[in-house]
């Protein structure tokens, strides 16, 4: 039995669609689409874009442009998902982040990431392909950078993370980081690394979707666990009285 990457890719694509349907269904059933509208829109976009692109496959030119337009929309939406995560983590502090602050942060990171992606990209490729790889590398660097910044700030200040935004950030961070390494690997190997890149990308995405499903599924149980009886509130004062 020989290893057929195309079969694996097609299989994982179907699997990914099934998993995303489960994720979307769970989000909808638990009413979480109202709390995380951007994430829900992102999941729906991924669900719709696959079959659409599949139908456009016979026309290569149309497929090419549709693919990159869909990719641009997905990237835009993924940044909004990260903004949503920032908002959820910071909204109970006074460090609430506005859209303009987030946009400024993105622009700053884009400038740095573009320079890094340009330096890392293989100069032997055709100009068009090179531009595309630099752009996608930049986007991934920005996404990873934004999530890493939030995690570092959280570790420093000990911010409270509800499990759902944490799960979204964790899944997405894993995927973006793995894809970044895979794209660097492809860049250093040349065209022979394309299959490895494609396989790594889809597999890491499956893992991310599984992580999301796990955290969405667990979300309801968490609520029931965490209720503290009101009469215990007095006890909270105890440790503080010791310091005065």
């Amino acid at each position, binding site marked *: 039995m020989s290893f057929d990457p195309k079969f694996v890719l097609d299989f994982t694509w179907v699997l990914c669609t099934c998993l995303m349907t489960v994720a979307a269904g769970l989000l909808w059933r638990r009413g979480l689409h109202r709390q995380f509208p951007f994430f829900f829109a992102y999941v729906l976009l991924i669900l719709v874009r696959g079959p659409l692109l599949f139908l456009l496959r016979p026309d290569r030119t149309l497929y090419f442009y549709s693919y990159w337009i869909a990719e641009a929309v997905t990237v835009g939406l993924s940044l909004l998902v990260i903004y949503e995560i920032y908002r959820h983590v910071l909204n109970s502090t006074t460090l609430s982040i506005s859209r303009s602050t987030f946009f400024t942060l993105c622009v700053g990171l884009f400038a740095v990431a573009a320079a890094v992606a340009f330096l890392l990209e293989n100069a032997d490729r055709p100009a068009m392909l090179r531009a595309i790889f630099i752009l996608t590398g930049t986007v991934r660097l920005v996404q*990873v950078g934004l999530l890493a910044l939030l995690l570092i700030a*959280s570790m420093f200040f*000990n911010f*409270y993370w509800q499990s759902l935004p944490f799960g979204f950030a964790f899944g997405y961070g894993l995927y973006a980081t793995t894809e*970044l390494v895979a794209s660097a690997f492809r*860049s250093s190997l040349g065209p022979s690394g394309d299959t490895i890149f494609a396989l790594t990308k889809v597999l890491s995405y499956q893992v991310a979707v599984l992580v999301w499903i796990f955290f969405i599924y667990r979300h309801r149980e968490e609520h029931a666990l965490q209720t503290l009886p009101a009469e215990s509130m007095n006890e*909270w004062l105890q*440790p*503080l009285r010791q*310091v005065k």
Partner: protein
Amino acid sequence: MTAFLILFVAALVVLAIFAYAVRRHRAQLRSLDDFRARWRKVDVEAFANLVDPTEERFLREHLSPGEFRRLRRQRLHVAWEYLGRVSQNARLMVQAGQIISRHNTGDDAVRARQHVATAIRLRTLVLMAQCGLVAEMVLPWRSAPLENVVSLYSDAAHSFDNVLDPGVARLTM
């Protein structure tokens, strides 16, 4: 290949941050006992004395230079320990305040958010004080401004006390 290695190492660092974040996420505050167990006692009065510049001047004037240097080193180590405790408590207060703010509405939520802001300022101030203390250990003629930390810590504790005023805040964890 060098570029790939650099990116690979950077990605490993990011993955390590994620792994650490997962560990930390599982260790978030879950109950009152949890909070109490993690709270570290700080003798504010002793800490205030320790960082009081007049106290240090007094010691400098009444001790021999050798004795003073030895005592100063000890005092710096104790101050370092206190800062670590204050930092730990500030971080606890940030998280507890956020939980309270999330599960309450109106004035209670506003007060909890103000409290989180104070704890965040305290955590930042502790970091600056720790840097100052390291500088003071290396360059003995410098002195780290630690008095602000003590006063802000007292304020933060008071503010926390108010947030947790029994019968006012509906506390769920």
